[in-house]
């Protein structure tokens, strides 16, 4: 079953290039390991939520607003899609994915992808 791992982090402009480098290297290592195990399907980082635009249909009209759909402290920062046997395997992979940014903790939301046969 495919699981989507949604990475939520605090957006932190104070992160140094060195810190960003460590995070990027860890992601690279996790992706490589996932590829070796044959579970890797996709993974991408996202630009900051300041680059987000939200589109809603209200009363039949399109409403476009600047910013993410919800202003929360932790924002969606990227995702993985991994094909795992079960939730336990997915959770074990999720543990390896870095979420912290410049010392601020983040988290991973693990969601099964609905499959249509």
């Amino acid at each position, binding site marked *: 079953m495919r699981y989507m791992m949604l990475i939520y982090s605090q957006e932190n402009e104070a992160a140094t290039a060195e810190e960003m480098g460590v995070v990027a290297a860890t992601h690279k290592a996790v992706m490589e390991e996932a590829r070796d195990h044959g579970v890797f399907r996709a993974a991408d980082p996202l630009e900051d939520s300041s680059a987000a635009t939200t589109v809603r249909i209200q009363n039949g009209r399109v409403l476009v607003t600047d910013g993410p759909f919800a202003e929360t402290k932790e924002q969606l920062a990227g995702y993985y899609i991994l094909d795992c*046997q*079960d*939730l*336990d395997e997915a959770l074990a992979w999720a543990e390896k994915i870095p979420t912290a940014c410049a010392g601020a903790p983040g988290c991973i939301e*693990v969601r*099964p992808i609905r499959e249509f046969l």
Partner: protein
Amino acid sequence: MHDHHATVEAVFRAEAGRIIAGLIRVSHSFDLAEEAMQDAFAAAIVSWEAGGVPDNPGAWITAAARRKLIDYARREQTRRHNEDQLLYESLCRSSAIDEEMSRPFPDDRLSLIFTCCHPAINMQAQVALTLRTLGGLTTSEIARAFLLPEPTLAQRLVRAQRKIQQARIPYQVPDAGSLPERLSAVQAVLYLIFNEGYSASSGDSLVRRELCAEAIRLARTLVELMPENPESMALLALMLLHDSRRDARSSEDGQLVALEEQDRSLWHQEQIAEGIHLVERALGRRSVGPYQLQAAIAACHAEARTAGETDWKQIAALYALLNASQPSAIVSLNHAVAVAMSETLERGLALIDELGSSGELDSYHLYHAARADLLRRMGRHREALASYHRGLALTTNAVELRYLRRRMSELDS
């Protein structure tokens, strides 16, 4: 004829947990498994009446229920085309029923316990699911025990079962890496079930007693299935030792009777003997954990023939160890009381006041009750009364309210 009913009922009581666990494993569905098991038991009444009870009734029910599962899958398959094709195929593959019958009857309960107590399910739902699936309590019994409307509880169960299916929470004993953590989650659920039954808060007392009995039965199953784990042994011991006092801890009019004042001849000695034996076995493994320390403390109380004989020195030492491994204000409070009883009241009071200075315990009624208790013993009645007052203001539990009021009226007179 009623003989067969009795046999079927006995098989149900003894084997339902194992049977449902196996059916859930193959069907990946709580609903279908339950429906199949019920149908199989209904079929058993008819069939055993005609052909006699089979040698291995549990295996017979399992095989019959599996056939039902295949029927359901076939029915679903025609209804919804290919959606359940996989379920159907996997069932058919595993349904060499005659072969299944000759194999030893497998025990899938351990895997199911880990599924029901999976941290991805919310804690309240873990409790309900464990009681419903492995404990064999009905939805309405569980709802009554937790003072919840039945539809609320039913909804909770449905959501948890759906999550297990949708997120594919596995039916398996976790691998060695995550086993310790996951096992302690299972232990926590069982202990919570026990405490819900044991706590003095309101509710149907019969149902509450049943919860304690069920928690003990489940803890026993856990020990049976993973006999090497000392914390599981200690959990069972802890439950037995507490439960042994059930007839002594409340008076006929529902008043709480403090440990010190209990009629110890009402304690159930066979439970105490088993509990102490388990604690000793667990401690022999030389891998101490919080349940072992708590069970050892309970054993100290259980071994004292009178309140005066209680080995408070040992209890204080055990609370100190518990506080070192799992520091909490409540453990510190209990430690202070044990010090008061084993050394001097003054020293215990000093520890309690030191604890109180952080303010963390100020809204905790047992903190004030414990403090009041020491002051009462020291003869400082006015201060004791003031502390009882503060405790009283913070309690909502009717039984505890009565206890505190009684203490106060004793001081007044």
